[in-house]
């Protein structure tokens, strides 16, 4: 288990990278040696009042002493975060949770993100690229305005939009199926995905049919983020343990283990 810190991390920058989507960089040197791809941090968005709970965000990137998250301002906590400026500090707990399987031998990594769901996959992309693997990325969004990751020379980048305003016109799942159908028989993949649950379910079906192992990054509302409240439970197939904790047993799960992908 990695060491967990509670720290007031200085804000390096907090930039709007797409429509209400922000990239927040925090200085957290403690994290450098501890963080593994797929882990998250829990931010106290308002030290003086509401919301009561911290808000969890995947670590999207880490470089020496800087961690980066990508978030969308959608409610009370994330709107407070949108006001953070360099000079402020964010009280964070992390790194939290388990991590993606990265020892995948000769398999080609397939990273499939829906909307904001690409955030936790960026760090995985970095991992593979730095180990000279060329990952295949699929990122879907409603429209061009929601895309914030549109260029990557070190990966095969496939973008799609529901309205056709950027890249493939259609669902990320359709683009993924087309891609897989075009591959030579025998190519081995390892898939990772994060996004809305209906999307992840569809991807689970696609991967199951083609016997591609798949790991999902799961979101649940969290009171503590560190396994203390037992609140973030999710149903899984293990008979001896019906509920897993997303914050501690997850957020990364083998798609086959969860019941919602059935």
């Amino acid at each position, binding site marked *: 288990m990695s060491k967990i*810190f509670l720290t007031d991390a200085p804000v390096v920058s907090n930039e709007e990278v797409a429509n209400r989507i922000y990239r927040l960089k925090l200085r957290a040197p403690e994290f450098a040696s501890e963080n593994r791809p797929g882990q998250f941090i829990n931010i106290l968005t308002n030290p003086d009042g509401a919301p*009561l*709970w911290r808000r969890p965000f995947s670590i999207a990137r880490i470089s020496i002493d800087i961690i980066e998250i990508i978030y969308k301002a959608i409610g009370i906590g994330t709107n407070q975060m949108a006001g953070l400026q360099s000079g402020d500090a964010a009280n964070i707990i992390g790194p939290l949770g388990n991590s993606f399987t990265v020892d995948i031998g000769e398999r080609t990594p397939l990273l499939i993100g829906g909307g904001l769901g690409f955030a936790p996959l960026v760090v995985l992309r970095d991992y593979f690229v730095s180990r000279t693997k060329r990952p295949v990325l699929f990122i879907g969004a409603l429209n061009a305005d929601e895309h914030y990751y549109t260029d990557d020379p070190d990966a095969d980048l496939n973008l799609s939009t529901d309205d056709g305003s950027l890249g493939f016109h259609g669902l990320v799942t359709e683009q993924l199926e087309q891609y897989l159908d075009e591959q030579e028989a025998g190519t081995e993949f390892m898939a990772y995905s994060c996004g809305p649950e209906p999307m992840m379910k569809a991807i689970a079906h696609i991967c199951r049919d083609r016997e591609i192992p798949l790991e999902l990054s799961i979101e649940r509302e969290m009171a503590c983020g560190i*396994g203390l*409240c037992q*609140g973030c439970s999710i149903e899984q197939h293990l008979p001896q343990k019906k509920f897993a904790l997303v914050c501690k047993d997850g957020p990364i799960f083998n798609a086959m283990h969860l019941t919602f992908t059935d």
Partner: protein
Amino acid sequence: MADLTTNLAPLTLKNPIMPASGTFGYGDDLPDFVDISEFGGMVTKSLTGTPREGNAPPRIVETSSGMLNSIGLANIGVEKFIEEKLPVVRNKGTILIVNIAGSKMSEYCRVMELLEAESGVDGYEINVSCPNVKEGGMEFGVSEKHMKMLIRELRDITDKPIITKLSPNVTSIQAMAEAAVEAGTDILSLINTLVGARIDIEKQRPVLSTIFGGLSGPAIKPVAVAQVFKVYEAVDVPIIGIGGIANAGDVLEYLMAGASAVEIGTMNYRDPGLGPKLLPEIASWLDEQGFESISEIIGIAHE
């Protein structure tokens, strides 16, 4: 510097702050920045006779200055606790209180009997008030008769201190407190959560899988302080105040209302290291006001 030791007869705590049951696990699996030995005591998650998976999700939701939970006593069961957790937590340098729950009287008794055979448990907190168990855990907490029966049975099993944890969801908290004391309770702790619910207007259904859950957090502090105040006047045993504690002023409020110690629950989720951080402020407040020990302010608001 003022003395923070508090007398929770027959227990003595080095300071009045403990984590509340269900918010600190079993005291063994905490983040590195929390030092359990800095607390006056450690209260475990409720333990039952057999392991419980807890209720179906969703089982938590935020509310204004509070939260609802319907965890449903998810726990590893007393046997696994004894095997895996007790050897670790009994050596944490603080008083260890094991919280016990069950659906039947016999289950409470079995849990206590198994723990009695072990060393390292300093006292028991009896959860008679968990609103999230279907089969009857609730009835003990809202019926004087049933509670008395339960506490009498448990009194026969142990000579260690019994802390009865009261439910706030009753017409007369004094009557429940008196019943608990009559049956042999050494210490009272209060409050457990208030029954509450939220409706998800998108889904047009209750948010929690169990419909009802337990409300905790700063929202409920005034209710808890009122009940502590009333119970202090009704009975003569020490009281542990619980409900919405977020800062040093809140701890002082409970002490003045009549609590000899407190447990912090929901606010641990913001910072599990919160409790010990409040101790220096409490000590310097006492110093500034010319008090030499915690004991001088316990119940002072009644004078």
